[in-house]
C-alpha cells in the first residue's frame, strides 16, 4: 500500500497509474481491516468496503479518535503527539507510524510546491518553531527539521529551544544581519513566535528590510501571544516591520492527525501570475470537503462549515477525518474561519511556553 501511495505522491499529475478515487477506496478497505476502532465506527454507521462506492461516502472518523489507541504499531513505532490541549497533556492526540518516509515525501513535496515554487535553492533560514531535536514528538517539528535540512545554508539559525522558549533577541540580531545581505531568507515560525517577534519590534520601534524574495511561513494559530493579529494584520505587520510583502507570507494549516498540509496559495499564485482571493490549497493526494455540522452534507460555495479531509498520506492510520475546524468553502480551496468554540484549544503555538526572552 505504501508503495502505491508514495508513487501517487511522487508521480507527475498526468502520469498516474491510479486515480485519487481508486486509491481512497482501496485505502478504506485497507484501514477498515486494520484499524479496529475505525471498523467499529464504520460498522455502527453501516458502512463497509462492500457498501461504499465513492470516496466521498467513506466514513470520516472524528479527529478526536486519535486520543484513543487507534492502532498499535509496537514499540518501534514513531509516535507523534499533539502539543497539548486545554484538557491537559494526557488528552493529546497520538499518531503512530512505522515509517516516516511517506510523511516526508508528502510534506516536502507540497512545501516545495507552495513555498519554494521559484526553486530559490539553499536559503538562510530562521527557525522559530519546534525541530526534531527540541521536540521529537512533534510532527510539525519533524517537518520543520526536514525543511531546515533540505533548505538551510550555513547562515541559518534556530531560535526556539526544547522548553518552547523563543529567543526574540537572537531572532532580531539574525534579522539585522540578513537585512544587509541580498539573498532571500526563509522565516519558519509558529504563529505565536512570529506574533511575539512583531510585537517586540513594534514595542522597540524596530524594523528591517529583508531582501527581495524573502518569505515567511507561519503555522499553528496565535494562542497565548499578545498582542494578537488577524491573518491580514499579521501580513501587514510583516510588511511594516520586515518588509516582506503579503503575497510572500504563507500560513500553513496542518494537524498531528494528518500527514499532509494545506498552505495559503498567495505565493504560488503570484509565481504563476495569478491574482486571486487567498485560499488554503492542499496537495492532490489530500482532498477536503466543507460540510454542514447539522447534516454532514457539503455546504454551498461561500458557506461556513466543518472541514473534512481525505488524506492518502495517512495510509497507516485513517485517511478520512472529520475535524471541528470551521472553514468557508471557496472554489477548490477554503478559508479557515477558526476552530469551533466547543473544540478544545490546541495547536503548535502551545509549544511556546514563554513568548519573549
Amino acid at each position, binding site marked *: 500500500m505504501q508503495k502505491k501511495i508514495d508513487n501517487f505522491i511522487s508521480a507527475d499529475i498526468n502520469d498516474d497509474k491510479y486515480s485519487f478515487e481508486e486509491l481512497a477506496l482501496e485505502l478504506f478497505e485497507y484501514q477498515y481491516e486494520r484499524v479496529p*476502532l475505525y471498523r*467499529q*465506527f464504520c*460498522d*455502527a*454507521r453501516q458502512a463497509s468496503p462492500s457498501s461504499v462506492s465513492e470516496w466521498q461516502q467513506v466514513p470520516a*472518523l*472524528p479527529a*478526536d*479518535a486519535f486520543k*484513543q489507541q487507534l492502532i498499535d504499531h509496537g514499540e518501534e513505532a514513531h509516535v507523534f503527539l499533539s502539543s497539548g490541549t486545554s484538557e491537559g497533556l494526557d488528552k493529546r492526540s497520538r499518531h503512530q507510524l512505522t515509517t516516516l518516509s511517506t510523511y516526508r515525501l508528502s510534506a516536502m513535496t507540497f512545501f516545495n510546491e507552495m513555498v519554494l515554487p521559484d526553486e530559490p535553492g539553499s536559503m538562510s533560514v530562521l527557525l522559530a518553531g519546534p525541530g526534531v531535536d527540541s521536540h521529537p514528538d512533534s510532527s510539525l517539528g519533524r517537518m520543520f527539521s526536514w525543511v531546515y535540512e533540505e533548505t538551510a545554508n550555513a547562515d541559518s539559525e534556530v531560535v526556539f529551544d526544547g522548553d518552547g522558549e523563543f529567543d526574540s533577541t537572537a531572532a532580531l540580531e539574525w534579522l539585522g544581519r540578513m537585512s544587509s545581505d541580498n539573498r532571500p531568507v526563509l522565516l519558519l515560525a509558529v504563529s505565536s513566535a512570529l506574533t511575539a517577534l512583531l510585537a517586540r519590534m513594534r514595542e522597540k520601534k524596530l524594523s528591517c528590510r529583508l531582501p527581495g524574495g524573502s518569505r515567511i511561513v507561519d503555522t499553528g494559530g496565535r494562542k497565548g501571544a499578545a498582542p494578537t493579529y488577524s491573518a491580514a494584520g499579521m501580513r501587514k505587520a510583516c510588511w511594516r516591520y520586515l518588509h516582506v510583502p503579503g503575497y510572500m507570507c504563507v500560513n500553513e494549516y496542518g494537524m498531528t492527525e494528518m500527514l499532509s498540509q494545506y498552505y495559503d496559495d498567495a505565493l504560488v499564485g503570484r509565481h504563476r501570475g495569478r491574482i486571486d482571493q487567498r485560499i488554503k490549497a492542499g496537495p492532490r493526494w489530500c482532498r477536503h470537503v466543507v460540510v*454542514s*455540522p*447539522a*447534516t*454532514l452534507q457539503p455546504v454551498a460555495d461561500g458557506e*461556513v462549515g*466543518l472541514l473534512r479531509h481525505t488524506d492518502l498520506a495517512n495510509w497507516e492510520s485513517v485517511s478520512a477525518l*472529520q475535524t*471541528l475546524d*470551521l472553514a468557508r468553502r471557496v472554489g477548490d480551496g477554503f478559508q479557515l474561519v477558526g476552530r*469551533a*468554540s*466547543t*473544540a478544545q484549544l490546541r495547536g503548535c503555538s502551545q509549544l511556546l511556553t514563554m513568548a519573549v526572552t
Partner: protein
Amino acid sequence: MERKQVESSQSESVEMLLRQQLGEAEEARKTALSTLDNSEIVAALAEAASAWSEQDSELRRGAAAFLAQHRHMSAAMLEQGLGSVFSAITTSSMENLLKRECPDAPALERTTINKAGESVRLRGPSLVFHSLAGNVPGMGVPAIVCALLARSCCLLRDSPRQPIISGAFADTLAAVHPLLGSMVVATEWDAGDRRMESTAMRVASRVELYGSDETVDRMASRYGGRSIVEHGSRVSLGLVPAEADTDQWARGFAQDVAMYEGLGCLSMSLLLVEGPADRAARMSHKLGIELSRLQRLWPRGPQDLDLETSRRAFIGRAELSSAGNQDELLIRGRDDGWVVHVDPRAKLDPGCGLRVVKIVPVKDRQATLELLESSKVPIAGVALGMNSDSRNWKETVNDVYSCDATLVCVPGQLQTPPLGWRQDGHQRLGDLLDWYRDEQA
C-alpha cells in the same frame, strides 16, 4: 467615523426614548399604587393572557410563525410552548401565588400600621429590570406578571434572538388595562450597547439577568457590588425509578427533549433509568420512536453554527465511545434529526441540546443520588417517570428535591413550570416584596 457618529446619535435617541418611557411608567405606578386592588390587576392580567392562550389565538399563532422563521424552529412547537406560557397565567394561578408568597396580600392594596406605629405599605421595588436570554421564548411573561402584582414597573430587555413576546404581551395588556400596560417597558438592544445597559442598570431598583453562566457573569462583573439575581446555566433531567414502567413515559420525555430544541434550562439533556441495564436500552428505543414522531410534527431546523458544531462534537464523541464500549448504545434519527446515547459513564451536564439526549442506566436509588450530587451545574427540573399514586412517589420526590432540584413534574411538563417557579427555587413574587414607608402617607 461618520457611521460611528450615526450609531452614537441613534443610541442617544433610543436612550432618551427609554428614559421617557420609564418616566411615564413611574407616573403610572404611582397611580396604580393608590387606585388598583389585587383583583383588578389579576383580572387584567388574566384577560390579557387568555387572549394568547385561548384556542386558535391569532396572537399566539402570529408570534409563533414569526419566531419560527426567526429562530428556525417549528411553528407548531412554538405555538404549543407559548400556549403553555400563557395558560399558566389564570385568575386562580395568580390568586394562589398571592396566597402562597404574599400572606399579607391586602397590604399590597393599602397602607397598614406596623408594630412601630409607622404607616407602611407592602410592595415591590419601583423598577425591576430583566435582561432576558434568547434561548426560550416568553421568559419575560411571568416576570411582567409578578412585577405588576407587586406594583413594580417592569423593564425588559429582550434578546434580539427572541425579540417580540414581551412587547407583544405588553401591548395586549395595554389594550385591556392602559395603566398596567404603561408600567411595562419592553425594549431590545444589542448585547454590546453599553450606553443602554448602563442606563437600565442605573435606574433599576432590582436587576435579574438571564443567560449562560458566562454571559451573566460578564454582565454582572461590569456592575461589581450591585445586587443582581442571576438566572444562569442549569441542568434538567428525567428519572425513571426502578419500580416504574419504562414505556409509558417515552412520549413525555421526548417532548421535554425536543421543546425549544433543548436549549432551555428546563430542557431534558439526560435521562436516568434505574434498574437493570436492559431497561435503559429499552427506554432508548422507545424514546427514539417518540423523537421520530416529533420530528415529523416539529421538524428540526438548523440552529446557529456554534450550537450545531457543539452538537456535532457531541455526536462524534458518542460515536467513538459507543464504537469502543459494548455497554453503550447510540441510536439516531434520520439525518441525525435526534440522537440518543446510552452511556453508563455519562456525567451530569447540560448537554448540547438540539434533540440530543443521554440515557444513563443506574443500578439503584443510591447510585442515582450519588450522580445527582456529583453535578457541577445546579439542577433545575426533574421529570419523574412514575405514577403519583405509586407507593414510593413521595419518597422519590423528596429524594430529588434533596439534591437541590427546584422543579419536579411528570414527563412532558418540564417546559411548563408553574407561574411562581424560579430557577433557583426562590419565590418569584415573594422575593420582590418588602415593606416601605407609604409614599402617599
